[in-house]
Structure formats: C-alpha cells, structure tokens
C-alpha cells in the first residue's frame, strides 16, 4: 500500500512524545520526522526506550502516551492498534510472539485481507496469497514449510525475523518500524533484509530501524541516525554518528547538542 508523498508534510511526524509505563516515565519528549522513502536509524543504550518508542507508536495498550504522532496527516494516537496498522504503520517486533495452533499462512492472509477490506480492496484468495507468500518466503530464505506451521511456534530466532520480513513484504506499509530486525539473522538474512528495504524505499516506504549493528546500518545507507538518550532524541547525524557510537560506546560518547527535528 506504500504511496508516494503527496504534500509538504512529513509522512511520519512525532512531537513531544511522552510515554509512561506502570507509572514510570520512559520517554520524556521525543521529536522526529520521517519522509516517504527515507530511512532513519535509531540508536541508544539498552533501556533507553527504543522499543518503547516503537511499541508506543504502534499503540501498546498498557502504555500511557501523550504528545502527537501523525502518519500522513492522520493522528495516530487517536487510533486503536489495528487502525494504525490499516493506516500503514508496521512494527517488526523484537521478539515476535508465538500464536499456537494458528497457521502462519492463515494468519497473514487474514490480517492482509482485514487491511485490504479497510481500504475497500477485494480479498485476496488463498491460492493467490499462497503464491505470493511462497515467492516472498523464498526470497527471504524462509522455508515453505514455515507457512503451514503455527505462527512462530518452534521457529528459531532468525526464522522469526525472516517471518517478520515476509509480513513486511506482503503488507507493503507506508512506514515500517523495525526493532532489532537483524538480531538472529545470518549474513544471508541481513543481505535479504537490505535488498528488501532498498526496494521498498524506492517504492516510498519509510523506515525507522532500531539497530546496534554498524555493518548493516552502513549497508542501509540511512538518511539520518538518531540517538535516543534520557527519554529524548539527544543527537541527530549521519552515518558518522553511528560509527562514532560504535567505536566509542554510548557511555564514552556523550551526546552533543540535540539537532533540529528532521535534520
């Protein structure tokens, strides 16, 4: 469903996002923009709130969220979880859960058809879907058999991530939040991931990629690298920022003055 940008507004715009979990403030004030086809890398120390940011934008039901987040001008925070997904927001989970007894192909097709129905598009039938799913799985190195197995049940870490990528490829979101998508992936998996993202960026999908893996970050050629620290974006830069953090570590590389939003 990825669509080209049609106005001067950023595709995803986040302002003063504040997140509390069980009474504890995890994010104080997060601001950033991502435009169609752009890729932003989000870095930060363990516990800095990277996953919280992604889950909050996706609508995690136990988070208390304030501030604003707009996707294509639509107020995300006003929408229930599924409406955010149908609006074109995709989250690749850091630890995708098992869904025992629900076959992967049934799950993905049901979800895909729910999204299509919300856009007034006809359902995709099982035969056509299976063809697309098999082609996608092959490209991503996910064995066909995984489509007929329960969602993520008995999957290795890498297989779970490949399965997330398969859903990313099939759903074609407008904005994809990828939370440590590289963890568990082997070199072939990372290569397939980079190829997929490159192709989808060219088609207009925007990406926010949470990662600690410099080699992959370099392969992705990000538009910006953001550093999350103390509950806000403390620094914005280019690949050099990622290289600096990787070389010196978060503790030894204090954040410089925060850059303007979207810079």
């Amino acid at each position, binding site marked *: 469903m990825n669509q080209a940008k049609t106005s001067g507004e950023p595709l995803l715009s986040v302002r003063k996002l504040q997140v509390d979990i069980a009474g504890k403030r995890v994010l104080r004030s997060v601001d950033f923009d991502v435009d169609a086809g752009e890729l932003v890398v989000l870095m930060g120390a363990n516990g800095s709130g990277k996953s919280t940011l992604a889950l909050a934008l*996706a*609508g*995690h*039901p136990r988070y208390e969220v304030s501030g604003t987040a707009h996707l294509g001008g639509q107020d995300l925070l006003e929408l*229930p*979880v*599924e409406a*955010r*997904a*149908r609006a074109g927001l*995709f*989250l690749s*989970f850091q630890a*995708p*859960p*098992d*869904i*025992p*007894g*629900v076959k992967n192909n049934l*799950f*993905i097709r*049901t*979800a*895909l058809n*729910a*999204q299509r129905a*919300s856009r007034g598009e006809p359902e995709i039938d099982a035969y056509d879907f299976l063809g697309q799913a098999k082609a996608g799985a092959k490209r991503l190195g996910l064995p066909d058999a995984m489509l007929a197995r*329960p969602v993520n049940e008995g999957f290795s870490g890498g297989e779970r991530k490949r399965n997330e990528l398969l*859903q990313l490829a099939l*759903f074609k979101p407008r904005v994809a939040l990828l939370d440590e998508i590289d963890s568990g992936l082997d070199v072939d998996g990372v290569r397939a991931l980079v190829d997929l993202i490159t192709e989808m960026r060219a088609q207009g999908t925007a990406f926010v990629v949470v990662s600690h893996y410099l080699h992959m970050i370099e392969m992705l050629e990000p538009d910006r690298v953001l550093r999350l620290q103390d509950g806000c974006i403390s620094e914005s830069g280019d690949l050099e920022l990622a290289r600096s953090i990787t070389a010196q570590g978060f503790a030894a590389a204090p954040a410089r003055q925060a850059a303007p939003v979207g810079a």
Partner: protein
Amino acid sequence: MDAARSEALAARAQLLEQGGWQFRRLEAFRFVAPPPAETWLGDETVLDAPAVPNGGWTWEPSDAAAKPDIRWLDAADTSQRSALLERLPQPGEDAVAPFAWAHRALCKGGLRIRVPKAADPDAAPVMLRLRQSSSEAVEAPLLVVELEPGAHCVLVEEHGQAAGAGPEEAVRNLQVHLLLAEGARLQHWRQVQPQAGQRVAHHLNVHLDAGAFYAQAMLATGSAYHLQRAHVVFDGEGAEARLGSVLLSDARQLDRQVRMIHAAPRSTSTARALALARGKALVAADLYAHVRPGAEDADIHQHLAGIPTAGSPRLVMRPQLEIEHDAVQAAHGTTWGRLPDEAIFFARQRGLDEATALSLILHGMAAAEVVRALADERLCETVGALQALDEALNRYLSPAQAQERRDG
C-alpha cells in the same frame, strides 16, 4: 424376578434408601456437586420401558482390513448380560461408585466392540465412528471397547442431539470401558455438547497393558450439569496415555476430572485442559496423578489453562500429584485468567480488530490442544475435530448470534 431387574432394584435401594449418594464431602466434587440420585435413576417405570434400539448408538462400518466385532447386548438377557459385563469391575466403593451403582440400576444394554490386530503391520488403523443420541428422558448407556494385542484403532465418539430431537432436560449417565491389550494403540476423539438443560455424567475407565498407547482429545461444553471423568490405570510397563481437553462453558457448569493411576514402571501420562468460560459459568478441572510403589520412572505431565473470556465466570483449576516412588519425573503447571496479551497485540498490529484477533487466537489455542493430544494433525481433520472445534468456538464466542440462529 430376573437377575438384571433384581440387581437394578438393589442398586436403587442402596442409593435411595441407604444413603449411598454422597458427594458433598468429596474433594473432587466440592465445586460442582452432582444432582441428587433420583435424577440419575428416574422413576421405577423406567425399568419396565423397552430398551431403545441399540441403546441410541449408531455406528459406521469400518473399511479397514481388520474388521471389528460390534455387538449390541441386551442387559435383560442373562447370557448377553454376562457377555456385556465380562471383565468389567463391579461398582466399588470409590468416590464415583454411586454413579456406577446408578448406572447398574438403569442400564438396559450396551455396545461391546472388539478390535483385532491387522495382519498387515502397515495397514491403516480401524476407524470407528460412534454416535449416541436417543429420545429417552433418563438413560445409562454403556460402551466397552477392547483392543487385542497390537491392534490400532481410531475411535470417534459423539454425544449430543439437535435441538428438538429429545428431551431438553434429558439425563445421561454413561460408562465407557476401554481395555487396551499389550502394544495396542487407540486414538480417541470425543465431543460432548449437551443441550443447556441436560445433565450428563460420563465415566471413562481405561486399562492399559504393557506398551499400550491411548490418546484422547475431547471437546466438552457446559450444561445444567456436566461431568467428564476419566480414570486411566497403567497396568503394564511402558504404557502411555495422553489426554487433552477443550472445555467451553457459557453460564453453565462443566466438571473435568482425570485420574492417572501409575501402577507399572516406565509409564507416561500427560493430562491437559484448556477451559474457556464466560458469563456466570462454573468450570472445574481436576487433574490427578498417582504413582504407586514400584512404578519406577513414571513420567507425568499436567497442564491446566483457565481463561475467562467475558463476564465473571468461576474457574477452578487443580493439578494434583501423589507420588509413592522415588524415581519419578513430574511436571505440572496452571495458568489462570491470562489471555495471551502479547499475541493479541501482535495480531492487532497486523490489522485485525480485537474481536477477530481474540477469536483467531482462541481457535488456535483450542486446535493446538487437540492436535497435541492426538499427535496427528491430519487425523484431527479426518475425524472432524478441527471443524467441530471451530463451530463450537464460534457459538461460544457469539452466544447472542447463536441464539438468534436457533430462534430462526
């Protein structure tokens, strides 16, 4: 007076006049108390009514190479009664003896099946499809299935009736005896979906000789009173039993009791139950395993999951172990009240609305329980288990819509 009638009257007298119907003080029946003895006996005129043809049992012939011997035996006929009750224990004095006595007082016959071993070791298992439904107000059906050494059978057993096909407050006190000889294998799919007003008690007594394997998956739904009790005795070394059940109750009662008695070495038991309840339902699931002295290397697994899906139902989940031997492995666990929040959030993040996500996930959990028990997904489809689960869950999750369908 013939022997059958004499025995029936003696059983009635014991239950009605000698205080033989006592459950209130029994721990297993503390939460879901059975209705009084009169409920299960009916009045004396029941004894004089002619038996329903084949006791309401219908079956489909098996096309397997090994032909089972299937006989309906009349309990009023002396010789048939003797054949019917052969190898079956007399009602004893255990916790559920009153049900057994009530059954003897009313049982007019039973279905006795003997499954031989196929000559070809690669032959498909014998497939038996049984259905029990009749129009009697009070009944005590009996089913006995014997598997000869090395026999392999798939048994599909269905109880229930369409709305309007029988008394809405019918009473069924069923006794099932499954006797598995050495090396026999039985995969058993049961579905028991009584009408809301019916009172149902099913007692399965399973005996496993050495190396025998018994797998049971069951779907049971709530009613005015519904007891499903399985008593599995491991008589032979290396026997294995695996019982999984999906319990659905909507403002009704449902009581699941499993007793695994490890009386032989190296026996393995797995008992699981997934209970979904809504409204004001009361569901109890009580899994008990007893390892007797000498049953070394017994391996026991118990797992219970109780999930209230709406309203304020009461769910009682009780895993219990009694171990009288040192070398035993046992694992048991219970989860109560936990919907899989992360999975629901994940599904919603993919675009499914909350109700659809919940339905999909609960269907999956139920299917996984059944597939795990029978350990054969294709078999689950062949016997109609997955379809039955889907239909039952759809009714359970949309009671208002189901009621509208029933009302036409």
